[in-house]
């Protein structure tokens, strides 16, 4: 920047005001300050700017603007679609959760039902078994009572017989009734 101002104020300006104006072709000063071709530069610059402006305003800018708008639209649409899909996914997840909960509840109900059934069956079976056991026990008890009664009788008989034989062996005449009474007496004691 310093160089440039220095030149402009010193060397170049002098050339521009003096030398360059009189002798444009062999000027040793700044070509920028040679006014002889300003017309040429300005003419072509105006042509260039008009061409660039027409190209930009007619073709380039509307096209790029449309591309950007379209992309924005696409992005917005895609986001909306994504939101929709997300909502659907949430709904599906909810349905799945609900189905799962239902299934679980149903399973529990079935388990409870089955358990109750089994319990009932078990109870019935147990009752039956108890009854049978009770019956068998009663039967056995009566059998045992019979056997015991039989045994006592047998003991009495054997004792009476043995006592009679003992009495006979001792040489006395066995008194049946007395022996029987004595055995009964002993059995009680």
């Amino acid at each position, binding site marked *: 920047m310093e160089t440039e101002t220095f030149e402009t104020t010193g*060397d170049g300006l002098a050339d521009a005001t003096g030398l360059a104006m009189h002798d444009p072709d062999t000027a040793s000063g700044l070509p920028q300050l040679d006014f002889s071709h300003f017309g040429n530069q300005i003419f072509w610059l105006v042509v260039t700017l008009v061409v660039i402006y027409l*190209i930009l*305003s007619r073709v380039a800018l509307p096209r790029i603007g449309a591309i950007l708008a379209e992309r924005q639209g696409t992005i917005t649409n895609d986001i909306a679609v994504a939101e929709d899909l997300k909502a659907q996914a949430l709904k599906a997840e909810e349905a799945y959760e609900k189905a799962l909960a239902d299934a679980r509840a149903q399973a529990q109900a079935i388990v409870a039902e089955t358990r109750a059934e089994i319990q009932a069956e078990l109870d019935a079976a147990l009752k039956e078994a108890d009854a049978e056991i009770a019956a068998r026990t009663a039967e056995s008890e009566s059998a045992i009572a019979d056997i015991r009664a039989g045994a006592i009788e047998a003991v009495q008989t054997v004792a009476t017989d043995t006592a009679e034989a003992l009495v006979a062996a001792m040489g006395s005449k066995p008194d049946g009734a007395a022996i029987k009474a004595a055995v009964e007496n002993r059995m009680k004691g």
Partner: protein
Amino acid sequence: MATEVQGEEGGLVFHPMDQFKVEPLFGGDVIAWYTPTNVTLWLGLTVLAIVALLILGSSKRAIVPSRGQSVAELAYGFIYKMVEDVCGKEGVKYFPYIMTLFMFIVFANFLGLLPMAFTTTSHIAVTGLLAITVFLSVTVLGFVLNGPAFLGLFWAKEAPLALRPVLAVIELISYFVRPVSHSIRLAGTMMAGHAVVKVFAGFAVIAAISPLSIVAITAMYGLEVLVAFIQAYVFTILTCVYLKDALQPAH
């Protein structure tokens, strides 16, 4: 500048300003206003480059853009946003004009960086016309849209009453200096950078200095690439700022 360097270095020949010479393309000495010159050639190449980027780049109208289309869209979005941010919603209808300015300057600057190229934006005739066009259209637009109220731009209502005339004079001067600074900034930076590169290139003749010279050219060139864009940006955003004054003079 050329003569000074020549004097110091003796045998070395420096012509840093030769690159800015306007010459007829097809021979001849006379440069009439219609003569096709190297200015014409490089202005035409600028148009072609803009067509290549904005028209060919976007020709596929792809939803998922190619590289060229991305750049075209970036340029569009960059300037559109700048106009919208600086000038507001009502400035958007001037977007094609601003875009024309920006695309022209940025491509002229970058094409000027090619070796052997002619930099159209280094000429005060070019930048001056651009700046004066901006200045006149903004001024006319300001009066057409606001009427005499446009003069309120120079009357600072926030300032104390006694200071207002002084401020008005200062504002008026600064308003008329705008096209000057606007044009010289662009032409000056372009010209200075290119001239410096050329001077460094002249030193490359000496074998001992040439590596240093090449490093310096590379560094300057990198700087110039930055400057080429930044100056186009500055020119455009200042145009937007001036346009905003015309749209809403009560700032």
